[in-house]
């Protein structure tokens, strides 16, 4: 490439841009990004774009196979279920439950968890390693089990599931942020800025936080896929979002008895769930790789 300016200057792209470039270089990450954006868009527009009311029952078209099947109908692109409800509409409407609610739960948990974790990491009192190890041990209990207990206390319903998932995610965020800050706060660069006399708020937001973004990104994607999986698993077990709602896990549970007759009822919602989680994981993975590479190069 010919340089038109005489004084060749090598420009380093900004950190965010570097991550973006790195991700763009990975075709899987780009595909994952589009899939995730598409499903988020689908979720936001779901009341407008569902071809039918997700709860409407077509008594003339019960257990209709998908349209690409010989006996399928183009009216019901993905076929219908055992009550004659359009599966495409239900999948689109279900994204609100299976993607929208987890996003909200993760957001709330992140806000609460990061604040508490940051506070705990910055203050001296809460740094007892025993407490920390204890948190370590308690967090080894899977989130689904804890959510099950909370559901057992509160009873199954949408609100309670949200509550359970949020409550379960908060300690994870606290733990991760606390540990990350704890690891950073005795490094030389932090000591240096402490000696420069910066106040604690500045230290937290400008000095430490930029250095733990990769941890935060990883934890957020991890929490999001956990939340989606757990909400779907609870729905599948019949302990989450209750039956008429088109939640993907609940749809899968319903298909359990129908799997001989109409496998599409099981395959399609599961595929939606799988693609969503996969794209989140791929994105999280490549963002993490990009950040790691940036750190290594600098």
């Amino acid at each position, binding site marked *: 490439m010919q340089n038109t300016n005489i004084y060749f200057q090598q420009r380093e792209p900004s950190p965010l841009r570097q991550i973006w470039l790195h991700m763009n270089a990975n075709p899987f990450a780009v595909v994952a990004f589009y899939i995730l954006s598409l499903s988020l868009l689908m979720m936001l527009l779901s009341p407008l774009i569902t071809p039918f009311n997700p709860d409407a029952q077509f008594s003339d078209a019960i257990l209709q196979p998908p349209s690409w099947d010989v006996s399928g109908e183009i009216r019901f692109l993905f076929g219908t279920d055992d009550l004659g409800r359009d599966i495409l509409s239900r999948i689109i409407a279900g994204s609100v439950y299976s993607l929208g609610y987890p996003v909200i739960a993760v957001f709330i948990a992140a806000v609460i968890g990061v604040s508490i974790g940051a506070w705990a990491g910055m203050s001296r009192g809460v740094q007892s390693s025993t407490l920390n190890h204890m948190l370590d041990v308690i967090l080894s209990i*899977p989130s689904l089990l804890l959510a099950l207990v909370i559901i057992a*206390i509160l009873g199954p319903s949408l609100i309670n599931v949200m509550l359970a998932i949020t409550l379960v995610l908060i300690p994870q965020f606290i733990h991760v942020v606390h540990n990350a800050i704890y690891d950073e706060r005795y490094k030389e660069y932090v000591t240096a800025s402490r000696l420069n006399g910066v106040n604690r708020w500045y230290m937290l937001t400008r000095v430490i936080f930029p250095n733990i973004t990769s941890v935060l990104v990883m934890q957020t994607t991890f929490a999001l896929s956990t939340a989606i999986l757990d909400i779907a698993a609870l729905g599948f*077990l019949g302990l989450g979002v209750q039956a008429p709602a088109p939640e993907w896990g609940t749809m899968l549970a319903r*298909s359990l008895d129908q*799997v001989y007759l109409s496998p599409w009822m*099981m395959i399609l919602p*599961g595929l939606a769930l799988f693609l969503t989680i996969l794209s989140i994981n791929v994105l999280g993975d490549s963002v993490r790789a990009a950040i790691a590479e940036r750190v290594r190069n600098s």
Partner: protein
Amino acid sequence: MIRYTLRRLTLLIVTLWLLTVFLFSLNYFFPGDTLTNMTGIRASDSLSYQLAAEARGFDSSIFTQYLRFLGHFSSGDWGQSLTTQRDVFKQLLPLLGGTLELSVLAMLLAMVIGAPLGLYAARQQRGAMDRVVMGVSLSAYSVPVFWLAQLLILLFAVKLGWTPISGQLNPLFNIDVQTGSIILDILASDNPYKSAALADAINHLWLPVIVLAIMPGTMLMRITRNSMLEVLQQNYIRAARARGLSELRILFRHVLPNAMQPVVRQLGLMFSILMSNIIVTEVIFNWPGLGSWLVKSIYERDYPVLQGGLFAFATLILFVNVVVELFHAWRYPQVRKELYAEH
């Protein structure tokens, strides 16, 4: 190492104690009568209810109640089921065996498949096989276990008919439940059709084991591959090459042991994920284990059973985690140094 072990064990005991406090308070949180939640004796059965109330110290302060609860709990009196009126603790042991059988087999399968594939991928770094292995592992890691189970059932049980859809053993074989682990039970029994029963049990067993092994297996694959690549770049490997050691010797003496370190560290996490999956998988395959028992108890609001299942699960996971950590610290001594340096 002794100091470290003692510290870990103390921590385990303290955590278990906290768990009992949590279980005790759960009885108050659950809807319904506290004593019924705790013992499984309904108020309608007034005589035993009175006796239980007395034994549990329900006329005195909450501390006495907790102490009595702890006493009963530690002596194996976990109450009785609200639905079947059977003793929770006695019911639990065979179910624990069933769950352990599934999880141990799945973990073994995951290790046998995951670690070598990870090593293979690391050998072919950035090659086609590496990408394929990593892609497959990331996808398999994202499959919800209940969907995967259904897909495999659809394929192997419904379409191909290779295996029964659910259950543990054909009930015709009439094997006495002793340990709960079906293979051990069959081997211990004196059934005339032992080998047929064993074949049937394995026929029931392999599908859930594969379903369960996929997630930890793919995790293992990724971790092994990444840590292999990491270790291969380390100074001490280059130094070993400079010393003229043979490539094989470097691989087995220096690369593999060090590459296995992050793998060992993650085993606890993998086991937790496996336990979370086992709850769902047991429900799908109708496997008589802790998970399906726990979920059923939630459906039926059978709180004594719920507590028992919860405690068993939590203890199992904590115990495995502590064992893994102890092994890790024993095998990789520089970890201990880091831990001490904290103080």
